[in-house]
């Protein structure tokens, strides 16, 4: 067996046990009496792109800065590629952490040209190595001919790509991006975003991407971590966190969501105002509610129906109908643009999850 041979290359088993690029345990950070980061544990696998999403002030940027060593946690432990860089009594300075940083502001050194900006992080390498690495990363960001340009001669998108190239050049253990597209104008944004993801994939980098934009978070990340008031509320694939949120906060931060009270009707069925559906959930609390996103619900025109159309929003590819239920609760249904239902129409609403619905305890009144 090859694994028993003493001189066997340790490649295969090593890959299995390769430590995560970033591992956080019990990170706490307080500013005065407020706890900005509250006991966060998180890991980013090697080569993984993890997005961290949450409203502003939820502690996501603080977390990023602590990983980079720009800020010291009050408690906890940080390991980068298995190497402890922060512990109870110790902190490695940022320059020795092997972390790449891209901020939302333009942080290219204005007095250095593109070549020298990228070469800044390649100290201690021979002239030839520097030249070839600079050429390599510039090729990666598709700005090969921009060597001699100065930052003020570049467009906003080009600057961010050079910043990315500069951060990637020293082959950091992990790349930390803090809202890197926030300052770009909206038209440019999606284009640069697409290019960035492509570059990161090609580079095979491990990435932590911080954003407040849930669409950006879900479209970029291998996994999405949702953060709220200092805690990581849920981590999972974009699909999981979107469809199966574990809390109302997560449900609401990733998209529009409505909650309707449910009753159990036996044989694996639950019942709510918008109809009946299958669920194997256990009704534990007194009051439980089912999450309904606009695409989880549909209706048909029915003069005897209990719902009433009270709002119409035309969105191009589809139409959002606001429907009022007998209880007075309202929810929105997303239907194809081919539907044409006038205001005030009586409709019969029905659930169309297409997957296990999410049932969560009702908010305490």
């Amino acid at each position, binding site marked *: 067996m090859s694994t028993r041979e003493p001189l066997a290359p340790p490649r295969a088993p090593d890959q299995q046990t390769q430590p995560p690029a970033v591992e956080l345990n019990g990170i706490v950070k307080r500013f005065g009496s407020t706890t900005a980061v509250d006991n966060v544990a998180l890991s980013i696998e090697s080569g993984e792109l993890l997005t961290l999403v949450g409203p502003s002030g939820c502690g996501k940027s603080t977390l990023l800065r602590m990983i*980079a*060593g*720009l800020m010291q946690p009050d408690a906890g432990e940080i390991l980068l590629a*298995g*190497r*402890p*860089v922060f*512990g109870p009594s*110790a*902190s*490695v*300075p*940022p*320059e*020795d*952490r*092997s*972390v*790449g*940083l891209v*901020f939302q*502001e333009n*942080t290219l*050194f*204005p*007095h250095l040209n593109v070549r020298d900006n990228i070469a*800044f*992080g390649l*100290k201690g390498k021979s002239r030839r190595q520097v030249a070839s690495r600079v050429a390599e990363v510039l090729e990666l960001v598709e700005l090969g001919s921009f060597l001699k340009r100065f930052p003020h001669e570049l467009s906003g998108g080009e600057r961010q790509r050079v*910043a990315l190239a*500069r*951060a990637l050049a*020293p082959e*950091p253990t992990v790349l930390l991006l803090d809202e890197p597209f926030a300052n770009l104008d909206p038209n440019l944004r999606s284009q640069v975003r697409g290019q960035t993801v492509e570059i990161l994939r090609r580079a095979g980098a491990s990435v932590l991407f911080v954003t407040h934009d849930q669409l950006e978070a879900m479209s970029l990340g291998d996994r999405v971590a949702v953060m709220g008031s200092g805690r990581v509320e849920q981590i999972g694939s974009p699909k999981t966190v979107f469809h199966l949120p574990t809390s109302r906060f997560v449900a609401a931060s990733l998209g529009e969501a409505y909650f309707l009270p449910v009753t159990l009707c036996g044989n694996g069925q639950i019942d709510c105002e918008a109809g009946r559906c299958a669920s194997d959930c256990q009704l534990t609390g007194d009051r439980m509610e089912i999450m309904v996103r606009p695409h989880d619900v549909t209706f048909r025109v029915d003069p005897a129906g209990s719902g009433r159309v009270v709002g119409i929003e035309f969105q191009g590819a589809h139409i959002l109908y606001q429907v009022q239920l007998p209880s007075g609760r309202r929810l929105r249904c997303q239907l194809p643009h081919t539907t044409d239902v006038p205001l005030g129409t009586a409709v019969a609403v029905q659930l169309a999850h297409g997957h296990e619905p999410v049932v969560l305890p009702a908010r305490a009144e």
Partner: protein
Amino acid sequence: MRPATNSLEKLVKRGHRTERAWAALVAVIALVCLAPAVVIGWSLLNPTAEVWSHLWSTVLPGMLWSTVALLVLVFVGTAILGGGMAWLVSGYNFPGRKAFTWMLVLPLAIPGYILGFVFMSVFGFTGPIQGTLRDLFGPDVPVPEVRSLWGAALVLSLSLFPYVYLLGRAAIREQATTGYEVARSLGYGHLAAARKVVLPMARPSLVAGLTLVMLETLTDFATVIYFNVQTVSVGVYRVWKGMFDRQAASELASLVLLFALAVLALERLMRGRARYEQHTGSRRVLPTKALYGARAWAATATCCAVLTVAFFAPVAQLLYWAAIRGGFESDYFSYLSNSVTLALLAATLVALASIGVSNARRFSPSRPVRVMSQLTVVGYALPGPVIAIGVLLVLAALDGLLSSLGIEVPGLLITGSLVGVAYAYAVRFMALGVNGIDASLQKVPMELTLSARSLGAKPLRVMRKIHLPMTKTGIAVALLLVGIDALKELPMVLLLRPFGFDTLPVWIWQLASQSRWEDAALGSVTIIAASLVPVALLTRSLSAGDRPEDLPTSPAAVTLEHVNT
């Protein structure tokens, strides 16, 4: 144990070491800057009874009286001149107003010790005015004595009023506008609104300017010696240069320090609860009232008269003397080179220390570092004689320490060395460097520093490769401002100058003291020309609409920010 842990310990130690090293650097600079004030403060708290009783029975009562009287007269003089001119050019419109607005800063370029001797030469007993009067009315014509407290106060007021003018003008123009408009809408006339609203709103700024003037008056002794006025600062000079009595000199210097503290306390008192308003975004300036006919020409004539007396006439007189004297003499060049050497030395010291302090604030951002970095600039509020005698005592103590350690540097450190003068200059002008360079570094976003560090650069490399190139303009301006202030500085070099090392101002002062006005003219013109550079910078920044504090022309000008925040 994994090998990673070992390297972690090494890295952690190094990280802490760099932070501590930056903090230690600031601590050392703060200590060096504070030491002269501390030793003088020490002698204030530990008075020697026999020295004081001797001083009291001889010169002290007269000195105290002269000092208080001079301060009061200069206060009144600059308040009227500075405040009045500020109101005139901001509140009214008359021919030449725009030009006067910036020209009224020009008197700052003539140091008191130059204006003083020109004044003496023209109005003194041998001067043309008194000569003409004697010719006309006979030898017994009554003329006021020029060599008097009044003469000294007039000269100091004429050379210092632009401080009050600058601050008052900015406050009147930019801060009082809304208040003025409300007052007018409530039925007050132009003057009534000025008295009820504009003046109270400008008061904190006017008081700040007057505080600056008081501190500069305390620093000066070279000018008032022309006028035979014996202030406490003059006392420090006479006691030290006449008797080399270190004890008495430090006791008197502590008295000067007490006066400075009193001035600062008075400033707080006069400002009352009012706060110095920061810019309120709005760029609207006070509406002016147009003057017509005789009143307009009276306003123009007033400005012309002030400018003529305080700037143009003295400069013309000096140019005339320099021209009839003709040519350069070798003495001039040797004194000039001494002055330039000293200015370069002081500017370099200040720039290096300021670069250290501002970078430390960036790399080791903690409260103690911030506090210590603020302590490095206390010299701005210390009168020159206090710093000079303080430096003397510190270096003497150092000398004693070295010889007790068996290292003999006979006489080198105490007097007769350039080190002492450069040290005193650096302490006095430190605020210009630290505030200027720190403001420049503030414009480099923190993210840039952080990016550089995460790319593997240690703080020293970040400073060298990123901070220095990006702040080089700020550093150059700080070097220039400190250099020119050092070039024209007189009181400290008079107290501390090494034997045989005379600067241009010292040379001018000695010639002027011997009534050799014409010989002193060339040097004076040189000093004024150099002093015009910061004045021009100031004027430019004024016309660009910045606050005057952005570009202080003297270390005392930095007081504004500190006294008022």
